[in-house]
């Protein structure tokens, strides 16, 4: 008997009949050639989140972002009018990378009044206009108005900065995000400015890590040793079911129910959780962030644990009921490597006990993520042997089925349209 009611069709997966229930192939995660197709069909067409407006606090604030999957390096900047803009990070003179610090292979950030090329000193305004050419008289009748920085489509939703590398995006950002995601508007992301920022390179395809955080049914097994024995044993016996799954266009959502650790017997929580009043689910003393928008906890779970919104293609917003949130980005760098970025956001602590509880939640997040990420390298290694080519997915793994289907659909549709 399921612990939570399933849709009338009998399962979450069958509620979305296009998904089917057959075993799936992960050929899309082990083929170099497919990665090249994804770059064209997905990473150069979809809206990609590259950060938050808080990273551009004032006029002249900028950061750079290399996006290998779109063959791009871009500058995000707040211009003199306060608008967030994006440009290709390339000087119009001889093609040097315009903004970089020390190592051109690393992203950088800072504040400036204009961008000056390190090579021959060409200068560009915050709006991308070419303002100065060194020894302009040596050139041949240059119309500077035609040689500003090459713009990238850029838009902001709920404080999240998105870019799109298409010549003309097929959808506006809002249309792309759709009703399930935009229903998060009003969630106070802007109040949660205290950030722990993590990054790592993973030797596995980006979709496999998306898959790892798209189901929580692995938790009682992979993460069993994170908990006291009695709790881990009970969790394993009970198994895991999420109360709510939802798909909307290319995007996905899973909500999980909550666990009231603070009401549990001390044998069921780790000593450090009791000391810090915090743990995986976050600080035990809930932060009151005011009324939540309708998009948060859409199924009305009580107790509610979290909502994990997977925004196509590579961005996740995970909102915890305790009043904090995470973001994940999975930036592919080849068919079997990617850079994983995890950010942990809290409302700024006002006292020591809040801050200690945040430290415990952030450190706990890292311990779990380390376990997850290493498992993926083992998965990638074995998938690449190709001795087995079809894999079973259960109803708790509906989001994986959806991701791989949407990726395939985007690639096929794009290639069909170009024929």
């Amino acid at each position, binding site marked *: 008997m399921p612990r939570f009611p399933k849709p009338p069709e009998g399962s979450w997966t069958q509620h979305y009949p296009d998904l089917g229930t057959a075993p799936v192939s992960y050929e899309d995660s082990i083929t170099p050639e497919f990665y090249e197709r994804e770059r064209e069909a997905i990473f150069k067409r979809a809206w990609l989140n590259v950060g938050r407006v808080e990273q551009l606090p004032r006029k002249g604030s900028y950061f750079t972002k290399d996006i290998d999957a779109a063959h791009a390096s871009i500058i995000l900047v707040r211009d003199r009018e306060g608008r967030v803009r994006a440009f290709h990070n390339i000087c119009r003179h001889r093609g040097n990378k315009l903004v970089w610090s020390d190592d051109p292979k690393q992203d950088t950030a800072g504040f400036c009044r204009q961008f000056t090329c390190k090579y021959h000193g060409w200068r560009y305004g915050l709006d991308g206009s070419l303002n100065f050419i060194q020894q302009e008289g040596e050139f041949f009748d240059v119309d500077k108005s035609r040689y500003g920085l090459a713009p990238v489509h850029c838009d902001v939703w709920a404080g999240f900065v998105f870019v799109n590398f298409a010549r003309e995006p097929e959808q506006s950002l809002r249309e792309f995000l759709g009703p399930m995601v935009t229903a998060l508007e009003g969630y106070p992301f802007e109040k949660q400015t205290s950030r722990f920022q993590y*990054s790592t390179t993973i030797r596995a395809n980006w979709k496999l890590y998306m898959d790892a955080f798209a189901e929580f049914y692995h938790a009682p097994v992979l993460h069993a040793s994170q908990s006291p024995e009695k709790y881990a044993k009970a969790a394993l016996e009970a198994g895991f079911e999420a109360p709510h799954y939802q798909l909307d266009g290319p995007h996905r959502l899973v909500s999980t129910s909550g666990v009231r650790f603070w009401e549990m017997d001390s044998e069921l929580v780790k000593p450090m959780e009791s*000391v810090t009043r915090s743990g995986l689910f976050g600080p035990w003393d809930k932060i009151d962030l005011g009324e939540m928008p309708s998009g948060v906890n859409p199924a009305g779970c009580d107790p509610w644990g979290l909502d994990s919104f997977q925004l196509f293609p590579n961005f996740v917003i995970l909102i915890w009921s305790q009043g904090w949130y995470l973001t994940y980005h999975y930036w592919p760098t080849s068919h079997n490597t990617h850079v994983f970025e995890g950010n942990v956001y809290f409302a700024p602590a006002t006292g020591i006990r809040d*801050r*200690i509880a945040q430290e415990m939640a952030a450190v706990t997040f*890292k311990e779990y993520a380390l376990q997850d990420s*290493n498992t993926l390298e083992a998965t990638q290694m074995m998938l690449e042997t190709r001795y087995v080519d079809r894999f079973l997915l259960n109803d708790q793994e509906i989001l994986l089925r959806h991701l791989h289907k949407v990726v395939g659909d985007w690639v096929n549709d794009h290639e069909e349209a170009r024929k």
Partner: protein
Amino acid sequence: MSALLPEAFADLEPFAAKWCLPTEHERYTARLASTMQEMQAFYDAVVSRAEDAMSYLERLPYDGLPEDALNLLHLLYSMIQVSFPVEVWSQPRVPDSGSASFDCLSEPMP
């Protein structure tokens, strides 16, 4: 050598030089470079004083902690860091984490 910690926490002074570290990267690196015995001794000493330490720090201005108090706070962050090897892993690294690393690029201050 002058004390790193407030006088009321002189009993934790033997652990201060090693564990009063201002960044997650340094604390995690210290953890990987420690034996279980070292971490167990630190953990036992600091956990029994954690409540006192938090009460002490609470009475000071959060945004303007004097240096010895800041050291005490960093010691509590290290306590959290070593609690995972001591309470669950029985080894410094996360088991089965192989070569995986996870760099903390920035964190809130203090």
